[in-house]
C-alpha cells in the first residue's frame, strides 16, 4: 500500500444532537447523527476515486473530514503515513495546501466582494507560494490553465456564469500546487454542456499535473466517466468499492444495483426496466440494526436483520459488504 497518498482508516463521525433540559432530567441520551460509521479507503496516487450515494449518506461529510473541516470521532486519516489530526500535524499548514477542496455551489463558495485577482492572490500569499513580484505572472498562468480570458482577473464573481465560477474555484485550488483535489459535487449545479467542459478540464489537468482526485457526486453517469475506482456509500458505510467499469457493468451489492438502475438512461426502450427501490434513506440518527440496507433490500434474510456484513472481496468483482453477494451475483 505504498502508493496510497491518503489512507482513511475506520473513520467514524457522530454529530452530537442537542439535549433539552427535559432530556437531561429524564436521563435520555443525546440523539447523535451517525454520519460516518467506519469508513476505510485508500486514495492511490494519480487515480480518481468516485464516491456515490444518496443525499444524507455521508459522502460530503467524508470529503470534509479529509480536508479537516470536521474532526472524526474515531479512526484516522493518514496523509503519506502521518495522521493529519495529530495536534502537531494540525498546526502544520502544508497539509491544507497539499490537499485542496472544491465546493458544490459556485454561487456561495466565492467571496462576492473580491475580484478573481484578489481571490487567487490571497491563496498564493497565505501559502507563500511565490514572491510578490511573481504574483502577476502566476495569476495569468492560472487563467490559461483553467482556460479563462485574462480580463477575468479584474471581474467580480457575479459577472461570471456558473461554469466560469467553477473554473475560478479550480484555479484557486490549483494556485497552491496541491497533490490531491477533493471535488464535492463540483459540476452538479451546471448544465450538461457546461458540465462536459469542466469535466474535460479536470481530466486534462489531472493528466498534466499528475493530480489525485476524490470525486464526490450523485450523477452516476458522470462518476462512471471520470473515475478509475468507485465507492458506493450507504448510511455512512462503504457497501461496495471497486474498479469503476466492473462496478458499473456488474454491481454486486443490492443497493448499488438499485442505485445504478434508477439513473435514467437515454434509451427510450429502457423504459420500465428498472429495479424499484422503495422507501427512503433511514435517518442517520436511527440506523437499523444488522445490515443498514435490509429495510429496503429485496434479498433480505433473517441474518441481515441482526448481523452487520463486513466488506469482503468477491471473485471477479469489487469488495462488497453483503451476506448474500455470491447468490445475488449468480442470479
Amino acid at each position, binding site marked *: 500500500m505504498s502508493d496510497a497518498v491518503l489512507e482513511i482508516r475506520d473513520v467514524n463521525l457522530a454529530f452530537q444532537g442537542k439535549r433539552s433540559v427535559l432530556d437531561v432530567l429524564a436521563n435520555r441520551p443525546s440523539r447523535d447523527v451517525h454520519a460516518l460509521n467506519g469508513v476505510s479507503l485508500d486514495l492511490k496516487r494519480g487515480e*480518481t476515486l468516485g464516491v456515490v450515494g*444518496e*443525499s444524507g449518506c455521508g459522502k460530503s461529510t467524508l470529503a470534509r473530514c479529509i480536508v479537516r473541516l470536521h474532526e472524526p470521532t474515531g479512526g484516522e486519516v493518514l496523509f503519506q503515513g502521518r495522521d493529519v489530526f495529530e495536534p502537531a500535524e494540525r498546526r502544520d499548514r502544508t497539509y491544507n495546501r497539499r490537499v485542496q477542496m472544491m465546493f458544490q455551489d459556485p454561487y456561495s463558495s466565492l467571496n462576492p466582494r473580491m475580484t478573481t485577482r484578489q481571490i487567487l492572490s490571497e491563496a498564493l500569499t497565505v501559502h507563500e507560494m511565490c514572491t510578490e513580484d511573481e504574483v502577476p505572472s502566476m495569476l495569468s498562468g492560472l487563467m490559461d490553465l483553467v482556460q479563462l480570458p485574462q480580463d477575468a482577473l479584474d471581474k467580480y464573481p457575479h459577472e461570471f*456564469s456558473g*461554469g466560469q465560477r467553477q473554473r475560478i474555484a479550480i484555479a484557486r485550488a490549483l494556485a497552491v500546487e496541491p497533490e490531491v483535489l477533493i471535488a464535492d459535487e463540483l459540476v452538479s449545479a451546471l*448544465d*450538461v*454542456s*457546461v*458540465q*462536459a*467542459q469542466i*469535466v*474535460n478540464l479536470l*481530466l*486534462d489537468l489531472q493528466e498534466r499535473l499528475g493530480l489525485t482526485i476524490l470525486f464526490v457526486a*450523485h450523477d*452516476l*453517469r*458522470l462518476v*462512471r*466517466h*471520470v*473515475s*478509475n475506482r468507485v465507492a458506493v456509500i450507504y448510511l455512512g458505510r462503504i457497501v461496495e468499492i471497486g474498479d*469503476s*467499469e466492473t462496478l458499473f457493468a456488474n454491481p454486486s451489492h443490492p443497493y448499488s444495483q*438499485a*442505485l445504478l438502475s*434508477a*439513473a*435514467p*438512461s*437515454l*434509451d*427510450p*426502450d*429502457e*423504459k420500465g426496466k*428498472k429495479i*424499484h*427501490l*422503495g422507501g*427512503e*434513506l433511514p435517518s442517520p440518527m436511527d440506523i437499523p440494526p444488522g445490515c443498514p440496507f435490509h429495510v429496503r433490500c429485496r434479498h433480505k434474510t433473517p441474518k441481515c436483520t441482526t448481523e452487520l456484513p463486513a466488506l469482503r472481496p468477491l471473485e471477479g468483482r469489487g469488495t462488497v459488504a453483503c451476506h448474500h453477494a455470491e447468490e445475488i451475483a449468480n442470479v
Partner: protein
Amino acid sequence: MTLKTVHTPLLSVDGLCTTFGSGDVSIPAVRDVGFSVSKGEILGLVGESGSGKSVTLRSILGLSRRYGDTTGSVLWKGENLVSKNEADMRRIRGGEIAMIFQEPMTSLNPLLTVGVQIDETLKSHTGLTATERKARAIEMLDLVGIPAARSRLGEYPHQFSGGMRQRVMIAIALAARPKLLLADEPTTALDVTIQAQILDLILSLAQDFDMGVILVTHDLGVVAQTCDQVAVMYAGRIVEQGAVREVLRTPQHPYTVGLMRSVPENVPPRTPLYSIPGTPPSLLSLPAGCAFAPRCPQRTDLCAQSRPLLATETGQRAVACFNQVKNRGGAAA
C-alpha cells in the same frame, strides 16, 4: 402507451411570446412557441438554463403576467387563456390545470399543516363538504405513497423529507383532479432513487386519470424514460420537436445532437466529452439569424442572415434548421 388514437388536443399553444423588461430594455424570454398536449400524453420540454422552458410553463397559467407581456394563444377548452382576466385564471389554476414547482423545500407554506394546504385547493375548486374533503386529502396522500396518511395530515412541511414534500406537492396539485399537470423540474432537487419513484408516480397518474402532463426538465434521461413527446428549446424558441423515440434516436437539430453528445453515456471512460463550443447568447442581443448559429458546427452563411422556421404541424417531427443533421455518424446513442 404504444398505440394512441388520434384525438383533439387538450391544450394547444400557438405563437406564445413572453417579453420582460421596461423602458428601452426588452428581453424576449419566450418567442413564438407552439405545441399541443393530448389526454394522457406526457410532453417533455428540455433545454439549458435560460432557454425559456420554465417561463413557457408559467406563461400558460398567466403566472408571468405581473412581470412581463404575454401574447399568442393558449387554447384550453376552446378559450384563449392569454386573454382571460385574473379572476377567471384563478378558477383554472389549481383546478383544471395544476402546477408542481421545482423546489419542494420552498413551495410549501411552512406555517400551515399539510392537511390545511391540501384542503385549500379542494375548498376553492370543488364543492365537497368538510368530511369529504378530509377523506379526499387522505386518499391523495395515500395515492402519492405517503405512509400513515391520516396521521401525517396534521404535520408541517418541515417534518417531511425532500422526496416526501415533493409527493405532498403532487398530492396538492392533483387533489382537484386536474386535466393537465404542469411540472417544472419536479425531480431536479431529489436523489435518483427518489426521482425514479416520483417519475413512476407521475407516469401512472397520467395513465389512470387520463391527464396530460407537461414536464420541464434539463435531463434528457428523464425525458427518455418518461415522456411521449419532446420539445427542445434554445434561446426562447423550440428548435426541434417530435416523438421522444425519434428525437432521441435520430436528433436532427445540431443543438439536440450536441446536448445528447454531452451526456457521458456510452462514451469510453476518461476520454474528453463532447461539449458545445461557446455559451448561449444573451437574450438582450440575439443574433440576427439562427440563434444557435455562432455555436453551430454545421453553420453556413445563410444561418447568420435568416432564421430557419419550425414546421408546426402538431405531433409531427419538426426541426428549425437549414442544415439538418441527416446521419449522426459516430455520435453516442
